[in-house]
């Protein structure tokens, strides 16, 4: 897992242009990252990173790239 891979996944999930997501992105500064967008991001991450939502249920509350990356790194 690298950061760029996660950025790209979230951009594709929310239908955003390449380069829209970076380490400072969160649900307050990204268009489409509302309750529905958050739900879709979680499902996309879970599919890509082998059931991370089951191993790390706290990811459902992660609303920023910083938080998501910390959890994904712990998940391995």
């Amino acid at each position: 897992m690298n950061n760029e891979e996660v950025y790209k996944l979230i951009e594709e999930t929310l239908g955003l242009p390449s380069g829209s997501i970076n380490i400072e992105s969160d649900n307050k500064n990204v268009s489409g990252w509302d309750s529905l967008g958050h739900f879709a991001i979680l499902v996309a991450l879970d599919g890509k990173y082998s059931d991370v939502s089951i191993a790390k249920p706290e990811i459902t509350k992660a609303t920023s790239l910083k938080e998501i990356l910390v959890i994904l790194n712990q998940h391995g």
Partner: protein
Amino acid sequence: MAKNTNSFTIEAIKYNLGEVRINVAKEFPEAAASGLLDKTGIAHVYKTEYDLVDFSAKPLQELLKQTNEQINCLITVTQSHNFFLPGLSSFILSKLDLSKDIYCLDINQGCSGFAHALYLAEKLIEVHPRIAILCADKYRSKLISSDRSTNAVFSDCSTATLIRKGSGIQIKSAKHSFDGKKWDYLYQSIDNSVNGGYLHMSGADLWGYTRSIILPEIKQIVESSNIENLYIHQASKLVFDGISESLKGFVKNIPSNFSEFGNTVSSSIPLLLKDRLNEINKGKSLIAGFGVGLNSMLLELEPS
């Protein structure tokens, strides 16, 4: 695991969908363009402007007309009350001028409500041989327009299901789970200062709950029993796929209708069963209701 031997059939199901058909993509064009709505899998949702009593009485009236006989017991399931008290059954008895001898029970549950009602109906059927389960919810009246995750999935619907004592199916096992600590995943307060009095739903948390709690419970049953039909609450494509894709190797028949009706809350499972009465009354099936509370009820049915 509970075991019971009362046999019954699910004889008929009538439904009433909200009369206003809403095109979700038109409501949320940005979500449609980005492909987000493809993930919910729901193109249209339905809203009613009718009063809850009128909205829910219609399918029961049709059911009684079709079967041309009275019921002995009425179980209502709703979280869309007009009144704090009395419960919906009082208004239904009055509206349809039904007998004072009918035993009535009002259940305050959401998406798991039908499964809870069927569980209780099976226990009551020994003394009340014809039971109607009336599910009715108007969640769309609870939504704030800016919340896409709720507006894109919920539909208003009422269903009436007739359960009759006699040879058919029986409950082989019933497994429930109640986790009150997760109540804040899905709630609506009486107090308007809490989320404006609107429905709050954390879709991500609910999805996580279905994956980490509900899926393993369903899996445990289907792996140990030869389940032919699995009827899951129709929350959305994301939730349905999150469960069904892990079970395809174990259960052949996992029908869905969320794309046609949206998430109709307590009516979701009866809507799924309405065209499958022959299937459920003869096969080995599992009904999986889960939602508000949070709670779940898994009913394993087998031919009697």
